[in-house]
């Protein structure tokens, strides 16, 4: 059978509510309606799939996402270190349409009318909904860096953030490849909360892994606005003191004040300027722009507060917000795994609501976060979060969760298995 014919048959099966959806039809529970999902990251893609799967195809789902493929932030530090390519962390969206019958719209959502329940796009289309899911990830607060205000697009070509995986990841890798041995790579980390707490420290390890093998006279300089390492401190510190001794230097309390783009110099509120060959500036972040447009940014003018039973915005009726854009509960990291778990709680609650039923009163979330120290050796932090009705929050279960005792190749294999399984769970 040719590819086209097979894809056509899969699409036809999905459209007819057959194929993979047929086996799940018993769980539909009478839900009918239209859901629009904005943003195809870990949260939005998972929500789109699970809404279709758990409704047995009875709920119409439209996913609005401008990119052709999903590029994962988790594992993308391996692309920066050079042990993986961008293709290794890229998954097409096709299966959401062909296997699950999601209506994929390659466009950017630009407007939300919460009262009329309509989303409009840059391409001039509009989509009505019964329930809206916003999973827009982060946007950068470029205005906090004076030299970025005139032309942020140009600034990030000189000083890549690489904090949304894709072209920025490749650009940072190219800059590191072009850097002469003996050069300095400087990484500026914003104050928490930001996307992926251990991500910057893993990135420092991956760049150091590359330098140790290819450019051994080079240095990694971590300039952290926080007072200390914000995640897996003991494990990262051990790596910098042992595996990468003489390569990595960590400096806390380095809040970025400005960047001299012409000389690649970082300036700080306190501390000496740092001039480097490659400057990787991760700016402060807030909820993606469409959340502001929808009027659901309610915390510190940055994040979206939600009801943790449903992930419905505390302000926008019928608008559910997932992932990094949300105001995190205590102990809840901004991670891809967490966004995937948010999506399942929201999908279940939306299907119950569309069937006239109350939400599950006891949602559970997990978080599994692997960090690569070398190309193969990995450390983890995991947690389990259960709903606390008195506090109306989802909180870590005391006595559960924890860290690796040390880095290991066994955990490296589990990390790759995690990636394959969660990508499939969200997209296939």
């Amino acid at each position, binding site marked *: 059978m040719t590819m086209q014919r097979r894809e056509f048959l899969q699409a036809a099966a999905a459209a007819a509510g057959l194929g993979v959806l047929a086996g799940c039809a018993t769980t539909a529970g009478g839900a009918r309606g239209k859901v629009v999902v904005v943003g195809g990251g870990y949260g939005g893609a998972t929500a789109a799939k699970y809404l279709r799967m758990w409704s047995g195809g009875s709920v119409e789902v439209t996913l609005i996402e401008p990119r052709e493929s999903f590029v994962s932030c988790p594992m993308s530090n391996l692309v920066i270190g050079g042990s993986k390519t961008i293709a290794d962390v890229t998954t097409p969206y096709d299966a959401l349409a062909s296997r699950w019958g999601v209506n994929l719209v390659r466009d950017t959502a630009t407007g939300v009318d919460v009262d009329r329940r309509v989303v409009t796009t840059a391409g001039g289309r509009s989509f009505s909904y019964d329930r809206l899911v916003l999973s827009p990830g982060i946007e950068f607060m470029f205005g906090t860096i004076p030299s970025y205000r005139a032309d942020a697009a140009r600034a990030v070509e000189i000083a890549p953030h690489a904090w949304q995986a894709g072209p920025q990841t490749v650009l940072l890798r190219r800059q590191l490849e072009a850097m002469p041995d003996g050069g300095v790579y400087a990484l500026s980390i914003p104050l928490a909360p930001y996307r992926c707490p251990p991500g910057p420290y893993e990135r420092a390890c991956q760049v150091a892994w590359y330098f140790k093998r290819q450019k051994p006279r080079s240095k990694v300089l971590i300039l952290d606005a926080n007072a200390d390492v914000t995640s897996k401190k003991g494990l990262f510190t051990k790596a910098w003191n042992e595996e990468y001794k003489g390569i990595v230097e960590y400096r806390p309390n380095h809040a970025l004040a400005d960047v001299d783009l012409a000389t690649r110099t970082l300036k700080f509120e306190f501390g000496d300027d740092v001039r480097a060959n490659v400057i990787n500036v991760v700016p402060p972040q807030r909820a993606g722009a469409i959340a502001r447009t929808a009027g659901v940014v309610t915390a510190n003018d940055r994040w979206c507060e939600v009801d943790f039973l449903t992930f419905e915005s505390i302000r926008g009726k019928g608008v559910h917000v997932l992932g990094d854009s949300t105001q995190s509960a205590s102990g809840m990291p901004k991670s891809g795994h967490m966004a995937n*778990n948010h999506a399942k709680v929201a999908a279940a609650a939306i299907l119950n609501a569309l069937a006239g*039923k109350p939400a599950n009163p006891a949602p559970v979330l997990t978080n599994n976060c692997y960090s690569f120290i070398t190309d193969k050796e990995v450390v983890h932090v995991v947690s389990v979060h259960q709903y606390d009705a008195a506090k109306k929050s989802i909180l870590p279960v005391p006595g559960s969760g924890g860290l690796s005792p040390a880095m290991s190749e066994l955990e490296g294999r589990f990390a790759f298995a995690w990636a394959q399984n969660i990508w499939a*769970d969200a997209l296939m």
Partner: protein
Amino acid sequence: MQAIMAIPVLALAATTAFAQAPDANQARDMAATCANCHGTNGVSRGGTDSLAGRSKDDTASKMRAFKAGTRPGTVMPQLAKGFTDAQIDAMAGWFASQPAK
């Protein structure tokens, strides 16, 4: 501090999960937190065990052993401690009912 905290929160988790009107899909929803590593509906894409179609006793007894610290592991001993025994039984039962594929 952790020991003091543990009693009310675990008790609360148990009461909210099982004393209130149960949601028909509660086991499915909890089991979905395993999919990130063990695959959608417990059908693994590789590198981890598939849970779909395994006997309830097999999955539940392994989870209890992880929770008790008698079965070695990396993340599972730490994750298993986050679930009540009743939740473990509910998830194990749900996976047992899934087609192994």
